[in-house]
Every structure is written in C-alpha cells, then in structure tokens.
C-alpha cells in the first residue's frame, strides 16, 4: 500500500515511517507540509497520514484540498496530531478526515486505525 506521510517535523516523519515499516508498510513517500503533500498525492496514493499544525499549508487545509480533487476525493486520510479539543475533532470530521490518532501513539494504535479506515474505504 502506497502511503504518504506529511509532517513538518523531520523527526516525527521518521517516527511515523518507522512505525509504518514495523507493521509492514514499505511503499512510503514523505512531504514536509500540506502544500508539498498536495503536490505528491495522486491517485496512486492509498493512504495519507498527516499532521495538523504545519507551515504554508496545515493538515486540515490539505484534507479539504484532497477532498476537492476528483483524483483524491476518496483517499483515506489519517490525522496524527496533538490537537484534541472537541471543536478540532468536529472540524476534522467535517473536512473529511477518515481517522484521527493522538500523539504520542504506538505502532499498535497506528495498525488498528489503518485497518479500520482501510476497511471502511
């Protein structure tokens, strides 16, 4: 499964990539913000894992842009973030986020959430 990891923190990208590899996902591409993620996300990408707080284009804007594009409108998006206030969650749901994981997370939580959203997709 081709997976795009979007996070402005290089260390956080590395952690997500390591977690994905540890659960068997090896076809991975990375982007440092929402804008770069949008450029790299085409129909071949099967899952987007994105942070929320990023410069240039944040994760929420990325999701909205993906949903507005016919090629990526149904691409599952997993938000991995520290944001947990109710208003943020509702915004994420409204924007079309498929799943939501709070940092810090474990590879097990990542595996479960990916299974859930890929099953629903």
């Amino acid at each position: 499964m081709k997976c795009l990891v979007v996070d402005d923190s290089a260390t956080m990208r590395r952690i997500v990539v390591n977690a994905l590899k540890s659960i068997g996902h090896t076809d991975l591409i990375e982007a440092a913000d929402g804008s770069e993620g949008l450029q790299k996300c085409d129909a071949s990408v099967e899952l987007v894992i994105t942070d929320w707080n990023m410069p240039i284009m944040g994760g929420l804007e990325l999701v909205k842009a993906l949903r507005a594009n016919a090629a990526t409108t149904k691409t599952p998006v997993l938000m991995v973030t520290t944001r947990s206030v109710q208003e943020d969650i509702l915004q994420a749901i409204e924007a079309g986020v498929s799943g939501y994981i709070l940092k810090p997370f474990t590879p097990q939580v990542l595996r479960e959430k990916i299974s859930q959203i890929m099953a629903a997709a």
Partner: protein
Amino acid sequence: MITMSSHNIRSLATELDQTMSLVNELVREIQAAAAAGQITGPVVALASSLTKRPDLAQLPAMMLRAYGGIMDALGGIQRRRETIQAFEAERLTVTQKQLSEVSTATESATIDIMDGLDRSLALIDQAQSQANAAGSSDLAGSLELLRAELNQLFGHLQFHDITTQQLGGVGALLDEIEALVTDAARLFDQSTDLSAGDSVERPAGVFNPTATFADVKVRQAAIDAAFAKTPPLAVVARA
C-alpha cells in the same frame, strides 16, 4: 513628557512671588486710601475680597512643593520604566533563547538516538538472517522481541515533537508579554528605543500550545466516540 526645566520653574516661582508681593502691597495701599476716604467704589470691594482669600504670597511656595512632588513621581516612573526595559531586554530575550536552545538540543539528541536505533535495527536484521540460516528459531524469536522493543523506543521519541510544540506555546506567550511590556515602557518614555530584542522566529500555526502527554487514552477514546457518532465518509458523501 517634561518640557519645562527645574531652573525655569524656580524662575517662574520667583517672579510669581514678586508679583504676589506687589499685589499684596497694592491691596494694602487701596485699603489705606479707602480708610482715609480718598477712594471709594468697586476697587475697594475688590481689594477687600482679595484680603479674604488665603495668603496669596504662599502660592509660589505651594507651586514649588507641588512641582517637587511631581518631579519625585516622574523620577519613580522613570526608574520603573528602566526596570521594565531591563526586564524586557534581558530576561525575556534570554529566556526565549534558552527555550530555543532546549528545542535544538533535544532535536539533536533525538536524531542521534534515532540513528542509534536504526543501526540497532539493522544489526537485528543481520542477526536474524544468520539465526534463520542456522535454523535457530529461539534466537530469531528473541531478536523479533528485541526489534519490537526498539520500535517502541522509536515511538517514545514523539516526546520531542510534543515538547517542541509546548515550548512553541511558551515562546509565543513570551512574545506577547514582551510586546505588552514594551508598550507599557513606551507609555512612560516615548523617546527611548524599546525595540524588542533578537526574538526567535516563530511561524504561525506550526505548533499546538495545548499539546500534552496527559490522558492520551481517555482523549483518544473521546475522539473515537466522536468519529463513531459522525462517520467521516458520510460527511464526504454529503459534500
């Protein structure tokens, strides 16, 4: 803002003192002339009303005392402004830099640890291949457990991302305090350059000031419940 010097105030007080002495002398002359029947009319009444007022000769001294009090107060404000400026220029700026250093140091340490973990995982891959080739399933199993442990350690390094966001929140708060302190100092003395120190560049929106390690499972459960209540795909389908 003080526009009159202490010397000017004293000169003015001296002139006022001399003027008031002349006025008092004039009043006495008018009253003496009125008593002798030499003058009558409104000027006598005016002189009489002037004598009923507090001693006008005391006015210059009162003015000087008031001026001294005002100068003392302004001096206190000036010292307070200097204290605020020192606080703004030194402590806040130093604290900002310290926060930045903490973030940089932890990032560097995190990357070093990640490199070490990557090397360790590569060694486990190598050892596991050898164990498999030798048919040692026990060793291969142990190495798999070790790999899982290292992967868990990798995950724990998320502390860096969270603390960086928390430090970003603290830094932004310090930026606000610095701006408020600068504005307050300008109220006391607009002539002084109170530009903010070398502040740390902080692009908007790149951190969550409420980032926390606390109650992750409880908060995750609440999020899962919200997603279960309103399936995102239904929202997308409506759109």
